């Protein structure tokens, strides 16, 4: 892997804060070839560590997954408190402009390979808030989404189904949205910056 010397402009940050943040440009990391990657994908699929982002009503639907009734643990899924250690980012419903900033930041802080599961109609097209002044209509304009679970709000069973689907995608090696995000970095950033006014963070949150 070649070392990339591209630096982020970070021009929306005050000068004195630039030293606080890493300004390296993110890089795509290509998957390995052949059996090893398959094996790793199997492991990734069977060990989904979830970072639940309770932006909307979906958050409450995530909790039951831990209970005896739904028991996501049997599929190797587990909640994880920090983005650093998680692989699945669950957007729990509509995202406002204010939360979008946090979504972007957390998403970027998750280490690749990372997957995004978006819950509910709001994440797809804004749902019932489609004409609100501060709600994001399409989350996938801002971060790449691997799988959607429709519904308003989807029940835990639906979420499990979504996660199972994600597992399948991973096993098939089709969940490479993390690289996509970096490949289309400028586009995503432009979209993000269009809606987020008080940016005050680096262009990429390492």
């Amino acid at each position: 892997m070649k070392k990339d010397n591209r630096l982020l402009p970070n021009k929306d940050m005050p000068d004195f804060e630039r030293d606080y943040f890493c300004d390296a440009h993110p890089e795509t990391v290509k998957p390995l070839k052949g059996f090893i990657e398959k094996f790793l994908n199997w492991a990734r699929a069977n060990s989904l560590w979830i970072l639940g982002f309770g932006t909307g009503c979906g958050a409450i639907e995530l909790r039951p997954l831990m209970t005896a009734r739904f028991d996501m643990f049997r599929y190797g899924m587990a909640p994880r408190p920090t983005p650093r250690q998680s692989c699945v980012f669950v957007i729990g419903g509509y995202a406002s402009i204010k939360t979008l900033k946090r979504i972007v930041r957390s998403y970027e802080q998750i280490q690749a390979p990372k997957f995004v599961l978006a819950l509910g109609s709001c994440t797809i097209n804004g749902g019932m808030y489609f004409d609100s002044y501060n709600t994001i209509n399409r989350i996938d304009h801002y971060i790449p989404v691997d799988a959607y679970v429709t519904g308003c709000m989807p029940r835990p069973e639906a979420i499990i189904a979504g996660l199972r689907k994600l597992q399948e995608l991973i096993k098939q090696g089709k969940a490479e949205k993390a690289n996509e995000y970096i490949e289309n970095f400028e586009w995503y950033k432009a979209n993000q910056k269009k809606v987020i006014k008080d940016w005050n963070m680096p262009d990429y949150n390492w």
Partner: protein
Amino acid sequence: MDTPLVLKILYSLISLAVITIWGLSLGGIVRKIYARVQGRIGPPFWQPFIDIIKTYGKRTAVTHGIMFFLGPVFRIAGGIGTYLFIPAILGSTIFSNFSVSGDVLLVMYFIFFGQLGMALGAGESGHPYSAIGVARGLAQMTAFEVPFALSIIAIVIQYHTLNITTIVLAQQGSILNWTLFTNPLATIAALIALLGMNMHNPFSVVLAPQEIPIGPPTEFHGSYLALMQTNRGIFNAAKLVLYMNLFFGGATNIFALIIKTFSIYMISVVVGVSFPRFRTDQSIKFFLFVPTLIALLAIIILVL
């Protein structure tokens, strides 16, 4: 001692591999048991292995600096070292490890090696939660070390030696020769200390996933985390082996080792599922009061 060095290293690797597998499986089994207790199916017992593979398989990683990078290495070196300085199975050349390096004092202090390195690594991440977690963990450690040290002192008084092998030898013969029965007070004190050491409830405030996202390791990910997960298995098993040797008559074969460590671990697990969590200052006060008094009593009885 007479074993050639290369062979010795080979033996140690085998012993290490066995204990790693057992340690991780033990974690998986316990999670399964937890699940069953709660009426769930739960993850398979090999789930820890999958998790580790997955964490190793992370493609990107960041580092906050040298100590951050070395922290997990310290941690697992501490765990492995601790294990390597304990003779795991009595009379077995393969499982005697590097116990010629030192006695129980060495083991007691080597436990700190990993913790110190981990604390440093966590510190360099610059994350306040790491520091808070470390502060809590160290504080709690000082407290549970007291009953632990006192019960080891009680054992030393009892067997007149610091040599683990000799201590195990003295417990052979009958089940009634175990320290558990010859010196129950010391054993109880040490077992309470074990709860703190394993950071099970009610002493889990160090990791506290809700308030300080799992405390010290909050910034660690990818291979760092994988190393630490591996360590959790090894270190846990090492502590159990130490307890087994000191209090439960040691083991003469691998099955005895597995059964005994499993049983000892279950004690922590049972207590862990039944209690809520102490605040740090509460657990410090607790450790310095109940188990310490028990251990002191054990010493006093022995001295008299």
